[in-house]
């Protein structure tokens, strides 16, 4: 394999590697800056000129997870000396902790809604994609385009009717409502991606299974699904990334119970002004699940997006 005539020579590889690594370093800088900001003190985070070398601090993370208030002397006396390391950090700012922040809840909401809608989207998407791939569905091309067109509506445009509709159905500001909404928005992508993938699985496999006495359903989930696992995994990554990070619907349709983290993170405030380290800490933690999910499934990431819509 490595001796094939088409394999690039070492010098080409070296140049290609250098260019890609160069780009990767430039592109990762803003991200590293965000992560680093999470470990700065509030003063260092807005230092003028910016600080590249700084004394690391966990203040951002402590502030992210706590509600604090400026302490009056009476309160300090009542509270007694700080007992934990995080209380000490807060006291050093002249504040006392009044309770946990909402970040945990928002994060949990994101997990429920993000993963819930991804799972549902995969279920519906695989079924529809299978049908489009294997059966003669009337008006197939029109239906496929219809499915794609549902992604073209700006969220702002349909937000008011959806808001009124959800309110009528009691779905406003609920996890279920948001799961259904994100599933609907993502369905187009998942059907289009998955159809391509299922197209590539030879029909002969199922035919053999059917001859062996399997029903269509059994053939679908015992033969096709395992074969399509790679495609499902990569599609799931894209759906999760979208649902995880969605902002416009979340900010307009959710408030207390079902609000996800994206509308919450940019708004974390500290003592007069934005608490940049806490914002950065929130963004960093929020990145971890998607990152882990992607790294775990990264082998499928490339295999998956063969876009059968393209390869007929």
């Amino acid at each position, binding site marked *: 394999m490595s001796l094939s005539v088409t394999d690039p020579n070492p010098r080409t590889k070296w140049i290609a590697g250098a260019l890609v690594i160069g780009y990767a370093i430039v592109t990762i800088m803003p991200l590293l800056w965000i992560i680093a900001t999470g470990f700065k003190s509030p003063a260092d985070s807005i230092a003028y000129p910016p600080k590249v070398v700084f004394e690391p601090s966990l203040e951002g993370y402590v502030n992210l997870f706590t509600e604090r208030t400026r302490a009056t002397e009476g309160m300090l006396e009542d509270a007694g000396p700080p007992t934990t390391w995080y209380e000490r950090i807060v006291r050093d700012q002249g504040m006392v902790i009044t309770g946990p922040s909402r970040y945990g809840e928002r994060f949990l909401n994101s997990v429920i809604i993000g993963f819930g809608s991804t799972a549902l989207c995969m279920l519906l998407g695989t079924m529809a994609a299978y049908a489009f791939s294997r059966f*003669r569905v009337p008006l197939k091309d029109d239906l496929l385009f219809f499915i794609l067109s549902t992604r073209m509506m700006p969220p702002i445009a349909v937000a008011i009717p959806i808001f009124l509709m959800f309110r009528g159905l009691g779905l406003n500001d609920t996890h279920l409502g948001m799961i259904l909404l994100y599933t609907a*928005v993502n369905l187009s992508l998942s*059907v289009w991606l998955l159809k391509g993938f299922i197209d590539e699985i030879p029909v002969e496999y199922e035919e053999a299974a059917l001859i062996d006495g399997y029903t269509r359903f059994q053939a679908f989930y015992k033969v096709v699904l395992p074969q399509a696992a790679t495609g499902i995994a990569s599609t799931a990554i894209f759906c999760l990334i979208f649902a995880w990070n969605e902002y416009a619907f979340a900010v307009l349709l959710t408030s207390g119970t079902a609000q996800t983290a994206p509308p919450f993170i940019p708004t974390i405030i500290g003592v007069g002004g934005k608490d940049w380290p806490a914002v950065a800490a929130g963004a960093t933690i929020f990145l971890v699940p998607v990152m882990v999910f992607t790294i775990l499934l990264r082998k499928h990431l*490339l295999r998956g997006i063969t876009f059968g819509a393209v390869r007929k």
Partner: protein
Amino acid sequence: MDETSHLDRAARATPPRIARRIQGLSDRTIAWIFVAPSIFLLLAVNIFPLIWTIRLSFTNYRVNRPNNAVEWVGLENYQRILSDEDVWQTMQATAHFLIWTIVLQVLIGFALAYLINKKFKGNDLWTTIIVFPMMLSPAVVGNFWTFLYQPQIGLFNYVVAFFTGADPASFSMIGDVNLAPWAIVIADTWMWTPFVMLICLAGLRSIPESIYEAAECDRASKWRQFWTITVPMVLPFLMLAVLFRGIENFKMFDMVVQLTGGGPGNTTTLTSIDLKREAFERWRTGYSSAYAVILFVTVFGLASIYVKALNKVKER
């Protein structure tokens, strides 16, 4: 796990009565059972609100005036929007954003995919690193880029200054009427180039080795191979990437709102931002519904022409 035994067990586990009943279903019925939930969900969550929006677009309804009588105004809303110069200005801003983000993302994304496909050592790791920006929330990206773009405390101007020798305080990406449209293009390109790259990479890897080997036998130059094999084979993938990016960026709202708020003046007021002001700040529900319909028809029209072209390319 052993495939056959697995299948056997599944077959045995299915109760005979149900099995018979399912077996009895025609393919056509199964097709509908499989497609119906998706279609139903899309009808309920996308199409129903869309129809509602279209209905509202012919009225003077305002959500914040529940006491006012709702009147039919016919095409008045549409007339007002299409004759409004500000709307055309936002369309121009959107076009600038759309065209340049796509051009840059396609060029850089394809170049990266091409280089990664040279399979140098460790390309897996670097690919994963390059993909990270697109996993961030656009709202968070917009938020942090305002910070990065600040001439005094942000990183961007210092990096540019380091490479060009210019004074970091001598320019302001967000404040300058000429630079602001580029500020949003840069941030979006940073975030979404990996998406285009991934799709191109999938395209490159789908090209069978044997085609190149055959070309090599014919003594075709590398340059020729690139233009006659690589580009045409990747094109359908690239076009699909452009389709998805195009649709997403036509709707672009969250990142830009956080980044510039549409300013300076109206320089970066994209149509979605303008629409949001009409719908959720002015609360002219009827008017903004008409606006939304116009936008939808525009994307729908452009996309259907584009998908036709895409299908042609595929058939080649």
